[in-house]
């Protein structure tokens, strides 16, 4: 019995042993937060001064000023055009690139460069891509469109490739057995299996592109973002407020449409 008691004490010691590793992790965490906060020069004073300025800032934002609605509408429509064109072209280009990146259909020599391209497109924020295009080909919606096409490929082609890699190869074999050409195999054996998921990616990307299309203007890529940025520069805060409200409204409508689309195509 005493031996058993010793065993129980042993288990108890293990069950409630202080977890030094977790404590070290937490200590490290706290130390990091203090260090990083110091590095970034955060001071309480700056924060308080900021809150003060924030109050006047908010005061100047209201009421929002919709008098220049023509400028507003022009920007929003351009953003919409950028989103639609870039989604259409981006998704279309994602089809072949995603196919090239699918490891169950393509040789390594093809998938590796295709995947590298997708990784490159995914790694950069659309705004960074946009600023590069603006510098290369000049201001305007074309730069924004090209940037968002690039970003769309990074997202859609990746998911598309993953979807293809998950398909059942039996059906592909069956189509191949009928003597179909490669394109025939893709159209008859591969596409039907991934189509429903593809619609999901596409609506998601349309939604995402709509959001980004309102932002590319900040770096000169066309759309409402440019209007927003210059209003900020002029301290025209009531117009800023009007622009923000319009952008949020447009994005929310876009979200509603996207979720309706997903339901219709489920």
């Amino acid at each position, binding site marked *: 019995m005493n031996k058993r008691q010793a065993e129980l004490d042993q288990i108890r010691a293990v069950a409630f042993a202080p977890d030094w590793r977790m404590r070290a992790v937490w200590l490290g965490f706290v130390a990091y937060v203090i260090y990083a906060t110091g590095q970034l020069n955060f001071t309480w004073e700056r924060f308080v001064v900021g809150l003060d300025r924030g109050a006047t800032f908010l005061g100047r934002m209201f009421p929002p000023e919709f008098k220049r609605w023509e400028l507003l509408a022009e920007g929003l429509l351009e953003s919409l055009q950028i989103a639609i064109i870039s989604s259409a072209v981006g998704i279309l280009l994602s089809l072949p690139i995603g196919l090239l990146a699918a490891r169950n259909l393509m040789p390594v020599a093809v998938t590796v460069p295709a995947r590298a391209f997708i990784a490159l497109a995914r790694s950069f924020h659309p705004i*960074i891509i946009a600023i590069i295009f603006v510098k290369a080909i000049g201001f305007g919606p074309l730069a924004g469109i090209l940037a968002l096409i690039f970003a769309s490929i990074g997202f859609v082609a990746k998911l598309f490739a993953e979807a293809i890699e998950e398909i059942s190869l039996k059906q592909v074999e069956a189509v191949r057995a009928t003597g179909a050409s490669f394109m025939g195999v893709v159209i008859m054996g591969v596409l039907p299996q991934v189509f429903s998921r593809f619609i999901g990616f596409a609506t998601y990307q349309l939604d995402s592109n709509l959001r980004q299309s309102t932002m590319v203007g900040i770096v000169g890529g066309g759309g409402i973002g440019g209007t927003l940025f210059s209003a900020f520069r002029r301290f025209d805060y009531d117009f800023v407020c009007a622009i*923000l409200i319009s952008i949020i409204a447009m994005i929310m409508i876009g979200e509603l449409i996207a979720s309706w*689309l997903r339901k219709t195509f489920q």
Partner: protein
Amino acid sequence: MSVTTNSPPSGPNWQRFTPAQRLARYAVYLVAVMALVWSVRNVSIIPEFLYDAHNQMADLLTRMWPPDLSYYPTTVHGALIETLHIATLGTILSIVMAVPIGLMAARNIVPFRVVNEFAKLILVASRSVNSLVWALLFVAIFGPGALAGTIAIAFRSIGFVGKLFAEAVEEASPGPVEALTAAGASWPALLLKGYWPQVQPAFWSIALFRWDINVRESAVLGLVGAGGIGLVLDTAMNFFQWTRVATILLAIFTVVVLAEILVTQIRKRLI
């Protein structure tokens, strides 16, 4: 073919969709094409720019080569670290704010619809405003620098973290919570021992996922003056120092890829 959906499994009705559904689909296709045609016809693109785009792009890329790596230790490294600090501190701050709001939004925690809807409104508002816009707002408030960037990242992330956290809490199994209630536990004890063990894996997963996104986002903030590597990128571009731009882009690419690998590794261990 194989794409079986919620259509009835058998019976004489072979059609996958009702006529109304089909009609809706064709209407969607039609509207999509019309929207595309309208966009292409109305967008203000100068055709010459379009035809020349690939030349211009190739020209820029040649000017970027070879990347000026000597620029990295002097300027890029510090900015890169600052970017990581902004992403990390912003994520931490967003979690601190998002957890209480997420709990308020979870119907099994707060049984008042008004509170749930109010919390959800905050979460939606946070998500609807892009991080760049948050950055512009906070630059106007706190002045240019990393403080504005960090708070922008935090505010932008509240919606994402809060929404997913609330969903994880709502998915928690009510059984253990019921058992602890029956044992006379107070509500903080219920949160601590009934809910937290259940949502913990989801919580870490959400936090890591958002951090990964924030590393990407914080690289941009500098373009509007909110600190980090974006500022260095902006300066280099304004002075047409393309080889330096290449170095910066390379640095961003490396960090983003490393962050993604790190997150996947940690998630594998956690789950």
